[in-house]
């Protein structure tokens, strides 16, 4: 039946249809790779999570023994840190994503204007992307703390120099805002945002590039119209710039969430469970649960933004 149907199609195939069939050839390498590496691996990961896996070092193979939901039960009720690490990772993601998006949009708008030395500043903003390898990041953190107290800050401290006297006290400022009557929750968020400014800047290199590109693609006629109609800069931002970059906000949110997940502690935990404790089943549970949680967040957030997105066609 299927064969007959195919023959029928072949007979009827126009020049265009015949050409279209060649499309499969173009995507073939990827299709093979996707099935072999992704589909197969995901199925295997699910399988591992329901089994206890023992490595057979001699042959290089492995043996599975059915464990049912035991690994899941262990992860959620017995494992001491999994739930906590998962929650902190998700919370970090939820806090960081809006900050990174707004920071990178703001920076992109500043960098989009013509000014002297723009190339240099753009290069500086891309630097964090250039050096985000694990070892380099660790060394950079160290270097950053040293810069805060001078290169010899640590030595000076041990010598008894009172660096506190020079250091600007943040508590005083916070007290001031509390007494003005700003809600404590909001204030906590702002303070944590300021404290994480290093991480946020470091995580927004690619997003800034995407936003600059997005801003460049807005037709200038829209701005001309806004100007003729007498819109202020503020109005122009909310009525022209913001709606026009909305679709790219989705791209950036997806990128940021994925990026934040792949550098989070829960991934770290999954990899150490597998490769230092050799508990593969449990590691598969960690990976799966965190991936499902991340995907759920992605779907919810993307849906939320998509409903409010204006597509200019």
């Amino acid at each position, binding site marked *: 039946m299927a064969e007959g149907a195919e023959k029928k199609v072949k007979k009827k195939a126009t020049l265009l249809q015949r050409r*279209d069939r060649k*499309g499969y*050839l*173009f995507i073939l*390498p*990827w*299709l093979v*790779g996707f099935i*072999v*590496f*992704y589909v*197969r*691996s*995901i199925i295997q990961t699910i399988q*591992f999570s329901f089994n206890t896996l023992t490595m057979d070092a001699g042959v*290089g193979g*492995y043996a599975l023994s059915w464990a049912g939901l035991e690994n899941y039960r262990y992860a959620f009720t017995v494992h001491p840190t999994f739930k906590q690490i998962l929650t902190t990772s998700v919370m970090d993601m939820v806090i960081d994503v809006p900050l990174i998006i707004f920071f990178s949009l703001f*920076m992109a708008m*500043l960098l989009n204007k013509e000014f002297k030395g723009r*190339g240099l500043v*753009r*290069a500086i*903003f*891309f*630097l964090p*992307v*250039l*050096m985000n*390898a694990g*070892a*380099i990041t660790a*060394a*950079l*953190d*160290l*270097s950053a703390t*040293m*810069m805060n107290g*001078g*290169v*010899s800050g640590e*030595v000076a401290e041990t*010598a008894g120099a009172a660096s506190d006297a020079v250091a600007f006290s943040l508590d005083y400022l916070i007290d001031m805002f509390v007494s003005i009557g700003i809600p404590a929750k909001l204030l906590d968020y702002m303070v944590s945002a300021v404290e994480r*400014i290093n991480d946020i*800047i470091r995580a927004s290199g690619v997003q800034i*590039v*995407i936003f*600059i*590109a*997005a801003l460049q693609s807005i037709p200038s006629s829209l701005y001309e119209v806004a100007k003729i109609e007498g819109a202020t800069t503020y109005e122009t931002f909310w009525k022209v710039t913001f709606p026009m970059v909305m679709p*790219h906000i989705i791209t950036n949110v*997806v990128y940021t969430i*994925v990026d934040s997940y*792949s550098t989070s502690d829960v*991934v770290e935990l*999954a990899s150490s469970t597998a490769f230092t404790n050799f508990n593969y089943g449990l*590691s*598969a549970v960690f990976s799966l649960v965190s*991936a499902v949680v*991340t995907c759920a967040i992605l779907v919810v957030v993307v849906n939320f933004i998509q409903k409010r997105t204006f597509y200019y066609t």
Partner: protein
Amino acid sequence: MKVKREIFTNELDRKVFLGQVTEFFVTLLKVAILVGVSYVIISPIIGMIVSSIASTEDIYNPMMFILPENPSLEKYSLAALRLDYVKTMGRDLLYTITLTIIQLLVCSMVGYGFARFNFRFKNLLFACVVIMIVIPPHTIMLPLYMTFKNFDLFGLIPSINMMSTVKPVYIMTALGCGVRSGLYIYIFNQFFRGLPKEIEEAAFVDGAGVWYTYFRIMLVNAMPSVITVTVFSLVWQFNDVFYANLFLISEDVVISKKIGSLAAVIANQDKILNVKIQEQYVNAGIILILLPIVMIYLLLQKQFMEGAERSGIVG
């Protein structure tokens, strides 16, 4: 009548003046933000450079800040020696650049396939590309490890242990599943969709086949995307330690892995046990590692920023 007119001009003057003042302060604020954020980004790098060129006495001198009194390049020479810099960097660059070329070819081909052909299940398959972007490789690292530990091509050949070689990364990249390949496919797809169809129609009328059209016409036109993907791929491949750790690739190929053990090597072989001085060597090593990639970026930067604007990275 005359009085009124005078007031009017005064009013205008006042407005113009106020406008200029506001503009001045807004510009000042912008410059302050840009300078401030730039400083946050480059200050650790300045710190690293200073630390790496300072001599041992300088490190213990509490008066020293930013400008070392006795700068020396001694730290660099030892770090380069222990990293086996020229050879390791050569191998790493060869590894990174060949992988980038494979990424470019495969991802642009797949992206073109998705952009310009209407085959069955196209939307479903493209959804799979998006899934590939979203699912981090960490989720499937275990099966990947096992696939390549006993690589048997689904039982077709006796199993080979591919651990500690670079083959797994090459195989995955050639099959469009390398470091962030999904994103590159997406970028190329978006770009090719934006090109006018007439170019291909003209090529077809002139008798060009699909492959000729793709290689000689479409790929040449896709220069902005090619540059964007080249920069991203070079940078991310060079910095990638995830796959390098997963497949136990030797430190002699992936230099970003080697820097992790530099402090230990220096402590062991040169008997430098002071942590602060070891740190100087590590900083020198990091500067050495960053040099080529920063240079490549600076070379491509102009095209990259302009390219990003026109390439498919934007929706």
